[in-house]
């Protein structure tokens, strides 16, 4: 039997957060009578800065809030919005729940995946797009709905989707010029 248990030492691949982020963490803590209650908003803050949540980031959060690491990990792995893997530059999260599916979301998702040459859950080879099929986003009256890096795009159809992809690719190119 494999004995892959290892001890995780503090400091291994330690993560450094921006001072502004740590400052905002301190402000968030003031909203609650116990530090632990700030865990979810703090994780959002850290994820917004790092774009995902590596294990080292979770260690740092546990340290900041004086929590056992296993508890932080339990919270991170419970909620769908927390990303434990790096995603592409543009995260395309398309709802395929009932109302959106009734309005063609599954076909839209197929169209999207075919265009990008991947399956839901994967990232394009150039690291630009990650596609996920997600649950109800609370915008059913404007179905089908998709999030692009958390921003709502509603009333979609294949044509609008194609337009959107082109716009995002253009944005990425521009960023490369200015970067």
């Amino acid at each position, binding site marked *: 039997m494999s004995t892959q248990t290892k001890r995780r030492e503090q400091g291994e691949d330690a993560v450094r957060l921006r001072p502004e982020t740590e400052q905002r963490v301190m402000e968030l803590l003031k909203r609650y009578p116990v530090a632990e209650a700030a865990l979810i908003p703090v994780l959002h803050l850290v994820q917004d800065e790092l774009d995902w949540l590596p294990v080292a980031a979770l260690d740092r959060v546990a340290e900041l809030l004086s929590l056992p690491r296993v508890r932080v990990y339990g919270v991170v792995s419970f909620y769908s919005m927390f990303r434990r893997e790096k995603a592409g530059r543009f995260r395309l999260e398309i709802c395929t729940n009932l*109302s959106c599916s*009734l309005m063609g979301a599954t076909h839209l998702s197929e169209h999207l995946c075919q265009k990008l040459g991947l399956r839901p859950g994967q990232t394009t080879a150039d690291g630009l797009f990650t596609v996920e099929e997600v649950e109800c986003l609370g915008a059913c009256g404007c179905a089908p709905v998709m999030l692009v890096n958390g921003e709502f795009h509603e009333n979609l159809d294949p044509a609008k989707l194609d337009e959107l992809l082109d716009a995002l690719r253009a944005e990425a190119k521009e960023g490369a010029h200015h970067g």
Partner: protein
Amino acid sequence: MAEEKVLSARFLKKDSHRLQGYVKDGGYEGWKKALSLTPEQVIERVKAASLRGRGGAGFPAGMKWSFVPKTVNKPKYLCVNADEGEPGTFKDRYIMELDPHALIEGAAIACFAIGAAVAYIYVRGEFKKSIARLEQAIAEAREAGFLGMNILGSGVSVEMWVHPGAGAYICGEETALIESNEGHRGMPRIKPPFPAVVGLFGGPTVVNNVETLSYVPHILNRGAEWFNAMGPEKNGGTKLFGVSGHVKRPGLYELPMGTRLSSILYDTCGGIRKDRKLKAVIPGGSSTPVLTADEIDVAMDFDSLAKIGSMLGSGGIIVLDETTCVVRAAARLAHFYAHESCGQCTPCREGVAWVSRVLERIEGGKGREEDLPLLLSICDNIQGHTICPLGDACAMPIRAFVQKFRAEFEAHVREACCTMGPYVTGWGR
């Protein structure tokens, strides 16, 4: 009866989310009025208005407030349920983005009524704009003296914070919401004790839906009788109905409680798209048992729908036309519940996943004759045996689908494929 807009009256106004416009339209007068009364008087007024919870359960709000014990040494809290995760539901987002002060005012009055000095607005994490607008509105309200310490010289202090969720439908359940607000995994608590006695951080807590609270200032301003009279007995007020799916005009509509479903579908929403025939309609969000086309002549209020074996729920109406494969619809919903189950208790963790796998298999053409009685049996074994209503929220709708569309399920099993045609057109085309 003229259809008066209560909650949605300000939605289309320019800068409707800013304090200036809100105050000009009479905003925070309800708050001032509440502060001139006693908490008990406020509770009585809300009770008299028959304001029932708009989050799904329909529990009378005034009664819930009155459960908070008066003499308890621990800090009390109000948690605003803005988790809006029920498929087919999209109403609270409008209030938070377009009229956040309405919610803040309602929440402040609720805090006063129950003796809470702090309120957390638990907003689902995906609603970034709602979160931003609420934060801005709270700051405005604080600056104007409507929130904070010693509000308007009354001696009452109310502080309000926005608390984001992070993608878990179960956090719409009140005890799971409280757990999540405390920084834990969103796993519902066993009841008793009830949140009104032991809730957030161990103190008495009331959890109310956004829409429910948004009515409160109006009730204070215009009176309980006015509110009561708008709907059938014990089902007062208006309701924000969100209609999605195969209607010509999907969208959010504010209508009196008790409006007939047929009227909503055919008058308000212009009928079925492409003039097709209606097949089925889910009346109040995915957790409510489906209605057939024969059952739509029903008043959309809590009691009328309960009488015919369904529920008003959140009022999220999902319309399925004749081209829809109900087997696929049922499978998709079961998949959702399996994905969102917190995993704590045996019947939900194992049973809901089982239902989902069986439906997936049937939908994929590998169904067996015994699968249908099996599904009904599993639903029976889940219902009433779980810690929280999510188990029921899966079991009851699936049972309704299988029972009311038995022939289609049987055909799907027998033919080993969707019997709606070789190309399932119901899904959007």
